[in-house]
């Protein structure tokens, strides 16, 4: 699976953020979701969704090799991470998320829950294997 976006379909509901945080942290806190929904209002009146496409730029700059690739997915090892935040700076999409109650950045693990539950199909699997529920 590879996350892609169709931002013109996004309505800004933030279901993706809530399900992401609830799935990974067992917390009802969309501020811990590993993606971003940018609202551009009042003009031009559009949303832009930013997701991790597993490009690996974060891993390349990590000084302690805390971000490692497994089967095409870059996973952050919380034990190894030293919270230098170099990956946060480097991420081209701004989707390594910093939260005040988390010691390390929050990174997408490509689980696909946002694809399954985005009501608008604004987040897609570019490889087509994961679809919205009911599709």
């Amino acid at each position, binding site marked *: 699976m590879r996350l892609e976006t169709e931002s013109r379909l996004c309505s800004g509901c933030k279901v993706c953020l809530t399900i992401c945080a*609830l799935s990974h942290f*067992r917390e*009802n806190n*969309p501020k811990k979701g590993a993606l971003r929904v940018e609202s551009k209002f009042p003009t031009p*009146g559009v949303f832009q969704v930013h997701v991790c496409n597993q490009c690996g730029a974060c891993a390349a700059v990590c000084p302690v090799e805390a971000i490692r690739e497994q089967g095409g997915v870059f996973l952050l090892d919380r034990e190894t991470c030293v919270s230098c935040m170099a990956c946060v700076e480097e991420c081209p999409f701004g989707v390594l998320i910093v939260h005040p*109650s988390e010691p390390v950045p929050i990174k997408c693990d490509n689980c696909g829950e946002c694809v399954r539950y985005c*009501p608008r199909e604004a987040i897609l699997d570019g490889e087509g294997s994961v679809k919205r529920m009911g599709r």
Partner: protein
Amino acid sequence: MNGYAGNILRVNLTDRTHRILPLPESLVRDFIGGRGFVAKLMWDEIPPGADPLGPENKIIVAPGPLTGAFLPGAGKLEWGAKSPATGGYGDSNIGGHIAPEIKYAGFDAIIIEGQASEPVYLYINDFDIELRCASHLWGQGALQCETTLKAELGEEFQICTIGPAGENKVLFACISHDFGRQAGRTGIAAVMGSKNLKAMAVHGTKAIPLADPAETLEVGKQMFAACFAKPGFEEWTPQGTAGVTNWVNEVGAFPTRNFTSGFFPKYENINGEALVSRIKVTDKACYGCPIPCGKYSRVKKPAYDVYVEGPEYETIALIGGNTEIDNIEDVAYANYIQDELGLDSISGGNVVGFAMECFEKGIIQSDMIGGRILRFGSVDDFVWLSQEIAYRRGIGNILADGVKKASEVFGQGSERFAIQVKGLEWSGYEARHAPAMMLSYMTADVGAHHNRSWAITFDVATGRDKLEGKAKRVTELQHIRPLFDMLCLCRLQWVELGFELEWYPKIFRAVTGQKRSWDELLEFSERVWNLTRCYSLREIPGFGRSADYPPARFMEEPIPDGPTAGKYMPREVIDRLLDEYYAIRGWDQRGIPGAAKLHNVGLEFAEATIAPLRA
């Protein structure tokens, strides 16, 4: 207490202090949240007889236990204050994203009291609370002010503002949020204006405590999947509420020409299809909503180029049909003007329509408005009058108090076509042919608003000539819909998709840990319905049955044309509906709750206040 942030924020504008207090368990136990908290805190906190625009009035802001949780439509916030429009219980509901943000910041209610000596805004960043200077914001439009604060504070802040109308204490000023969501009704923005409170900006980072996170995730997923599977999920969403415009005209219930008629011949030029094909930019959702009703639009003509969220159905009805503006572009432009001024476009369209009819009848004359004229169908006249109202200039200063008070000034029979109940302007359903919808408007606790009981589909389905069963159904709906406002959820999944009500107790249990059936939850709603009635009885001398009648136009004037031509609802029918309604409610024939009813719904504390009124 799972589902709750656990704190109340009390802000005193007079001495510029705040306190963070633990959320009382008794408040949760007896009133759940949202509208329940608003009603109980208003009863306890606002001194009887308070001037709605004086420092002793208080603004209560409350999300609910499911606000911000993982389920469809969990983005609603309840605002309450003693209403300057009606003098009684006032609340208004807003969507967008600020309700969850208040929970993430750590609060289940905010109590705003006193009066600032100069313009301020309330800054909430988790537990970092400040009253900040708003002198640079004062005078800005509601949308402009949100843009300014977003630029100053960051996109992550959720912001509510008032426009010039709120600053100038127009009694139908609205609170604006998220570039187009409004808490429009009952004039709470005027209360903000009276307190010199221009805005509220909120950012939070905390989680909402869950009784069972795994179960919340599982039930929430099932609820979203169930929404996706409903036929209306694909069909209803593109037009949102504007989609009902055709049907309302077909059944002759579309407010037209200040509620003279129920059918607007040019409705196809202002309906949902016109919106989607001509002006819509994007669908715009409140938090957690799978069926966004928000239609963000751009209208561009030689005279203007503006972005506006909407128009939604109510605006299409009150600005479109009711003032006979006959094209979607001008309706959207007029919508934008009122949004930026901070006027509720329901009351706003109603008041302007009233003024246009007053001009036609010679009650408002050209020399009273600087030699101008006021014509139905003129967007220029609509815009001009909206500005006069928002800045309380000239005739606008009279109209800024709403149609009831304006008709008392104008006289000459204008009260017959001042379309309101209790001082709140009627919203988007002409009801002379629809007994349940008529009774809904008559008995809604805040005044003539549709959202307590949207009964018109029930009227059409069961027969509009039939009176039997109507009062009973209205009573049921008046418990269901306000329960959504207590949980602070949107009702449109239920209303528009037919989403089953049985889902809500399941997610309520997963989030809060409390096992309650839907019927048990409805008992809380009846408690609050009686409490808001008691509040208005306490505050308004002589309140009761006489406050539950529609304007004379609806009881005496037949609809002249359209599918409901000839229909009106004679006073004896109105009286029969009220008699039945009061009997079902356990209220006496003056509309005062009986002692037994107050006891049965757990409002013994109100009995001492209400008993003398029954004597």
